[in-house]
């Protein structure tokens, strides 16, 4: 028998037509997730060619990227403030039913960030191929799915044929030994991995995260890790499904039930990488040596332990430009730097466990004067669960602005922006120039670090507050 990686098993099972030297593989897509920002042009292409959506029942639509997070614009009678966003919402509200696609609309109790709602519905399952016009589709790899972001033209291809033309990527094992120390989270782990392999280190590869530290993670933590695979350049990251995965999925609305559950379990248990299977590349990391991590520059690879100081890189104009944008100098310590905004949310860290982590710090404490703390749940379901657990009250008492679900300040499309020149400790995934609004200076960190920094008004080590 030839030993195969999990990626190879999932890939082969979805090859409708294998690749040749002349043509890429025709790869079948089990689940197609869509949202309002990258679908309009694909729907227009279908309409122009008079084509239907081939498998609408394999397609799920939500509204997340450009939607408001203020309750009155969603549940009240206040119109969506941004006209262009309102147009995108209306377009998907028109397109989805016209093409027979299920849409979780503005007031639907199941609406939320596309990469949060699909797992919580049980629609994301091991062994699947999942695509979406969004690069953080890699999130779903936490379940042992092959999940990656595509462009709008490819969204149209999936609409029309339920398939994509793809060249087979290479495989990259990320072995994480040990156990994360207290106060060090999955977010810190993935930031450390990106710091290690670099923002293009994963280009052309599918990452597989494995080892004792990964096996010890909850599903929500695994999603945080896989989510940021793309920040290392890898379109997809995967984690082998195990009992943690199966326990998470059992009983969810779209999970298999009855005899279908048993059949699915048998398939899922066979997915893990065979002992002795070869990867094209690998890296080894010891989780037990990690500290809380924070970025200091303008890409997620410019990251250091929170107790560290900004490295000096002589003759590196790129580093100079990043530090000039951030208003930092080589040699400065990260701890104690004043901040203006804290954003807790996004498809990286907007799930219930992330909010619980923030609440652990914020309980009985208050945001520092002059600091804005925005907490945006990943989905309406996360919002309700957080309210039921008393987190909403903790957030409000701490002086946080506790909103409705959406991508929000992660990319600032909906008007939730940081402000030029202001510093934001953010649990999201990108610290690119202007990512969180024109001139915004983003410091990526975990929910613990974000909450601790909100309380201190400065970059703070959460381990002192836990």
């Amino acid at each position: 028998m030839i030993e195969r990686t999990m990626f190879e098993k999932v890939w082969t099972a979805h090859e409708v037509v294998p690749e040749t030297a002349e043509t890429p593989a025709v790869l079948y897509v089990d689940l197609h997730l869509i949202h309002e920002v990258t679908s309009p042009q694909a729907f227009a292409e279908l309409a122009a060619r008079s084509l239907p959506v081939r498998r609408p029942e394999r397609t799920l639509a939500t509204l997340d990227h450009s939607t408001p997070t203020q309750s009155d614009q969603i549940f009240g009678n206040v119109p969506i403030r941004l006209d262009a966003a309102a147009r995108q919402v209306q377009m998907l509200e028109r397109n989805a039913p016209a093409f027979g696609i299920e849409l979780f609309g503005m007031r639907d109790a199941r609406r939320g960030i596309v990469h949060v709602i699909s797992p919580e519905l049980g629609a994301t399952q091991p062994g699947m191929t999942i695509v979406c016009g969004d690069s953080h589709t890699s999130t779903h790899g936490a379940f042992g799915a092959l999940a990656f972001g595509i462009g709008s033209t490819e969204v149209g291809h999936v609409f029309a044929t339920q398939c994509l033309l793809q060249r087979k990527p290479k495989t990259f094992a990320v072995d994480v030994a040990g156990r994360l120390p207290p106060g060090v989270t999955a977010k810190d782990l993935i930031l450390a991995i990106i710091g290690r392999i670099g923002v293009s280190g994963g280009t052309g590869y599918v990452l597989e995260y494995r080892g004792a530290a990964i096996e010890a993670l909850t599903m929500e933590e695994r999603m945080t890790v896989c989510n940021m695979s793309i920040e290392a350049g890898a379109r997809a990251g995967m984690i082998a499904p195990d009992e943690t995965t199966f326990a998470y999925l059992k009983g969810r609305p779209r999970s298999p039930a009855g005899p279908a559950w048993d059949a699915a379990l048998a398939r899922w248990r066979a997915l893990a990488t065979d002992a002795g299977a070869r990867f094209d590349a690998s890296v080894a990391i010891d989780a037990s040596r990690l500290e809380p991590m924070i970025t200091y520059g303008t890409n997620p690879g410019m990251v250091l332990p929170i107790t560290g100081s900004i490295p000096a890189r002589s003759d590196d104009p790129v580093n100079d430009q990043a530090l000039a944008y951030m208003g930092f100098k080589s040699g400065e310590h990260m701890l104690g730097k004043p901040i203006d905004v804290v954003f807790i949310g996004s498809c990286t860290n907007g799930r219930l466990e992330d909010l619980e982590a923030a609440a652990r710090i914020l309980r009985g404490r208050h945001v520092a004067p002059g600091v804005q703390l925005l907490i945006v749940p990943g989905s309406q379901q996360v919002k309700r669960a957080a309210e039921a657990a008393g987190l909403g009250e903790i957030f409000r008492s701490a002086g946080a602005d506790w909103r409705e679900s959406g991508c929000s300040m992660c990319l600032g499309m909906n008007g939730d922006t940081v402000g030029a020149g202001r510093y934001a400790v953010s649990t999201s995934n990108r610290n690119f120039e202007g990512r969180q609004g024109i001139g915004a200076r983003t410091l990526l960190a975990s929910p613990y670090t974000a909450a601790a920094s909100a309380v201190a008004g400065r970059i703070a080590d959460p381990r002192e507050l836990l």
Partner: protein
Amino acid sequence: MQPITQIRSHCVVLAQPNIDTDQIIPARFLTTTTKSGLGKALFSEWRYLPDGAPNPGFVLNQPAAAGAEILVAGHNFGCGSSREHAPWALLDHGFRVVVSTAIADIFRNNSLKNGLLPVVVDPDVHGWLLEHPGAELTVDLEALCLTLPTGRAVSFSIEPFARHCLMHGLDELGYLQSRLPEIERYEATLPP
């Protein structure tokens, strides 16, 4: 799409590595529902001053950049999001080729689907290009060859099927649709 065989143009150099899709086109411009008109938002944060006037210090605003169809960019160009608005904006501005030592996966795919050629060269050639902004280059898709003004010919690779489609003005959806019989047979094997 118009068939592409050869592109001849002077180049513009943006040397910094890791130019991400938020730099190419910031998210606030993604509220459009069409593909057109995004060129004016290209590199918006760098290209315009806070008052909206063109930033004279930015290379695309300098007279030598006018009409350039080839962008030479630093390592790992196009990293970040899957927004196809990035190649749409580059094309709408007039670029038809991006040259770098590495081009991010999703951006490269999106570029090929729209007729923007992603050309990856080795660090040596790249280094020459970075030192010669404005150089007149020829990119030959048929010969898979980039020719420098010195006469040096550098080969590059483009995924063969995408190249075939670009050279013949075909779109890939037509090919996918031609495989519908196989797709139907595959679907018949899926668990319920």
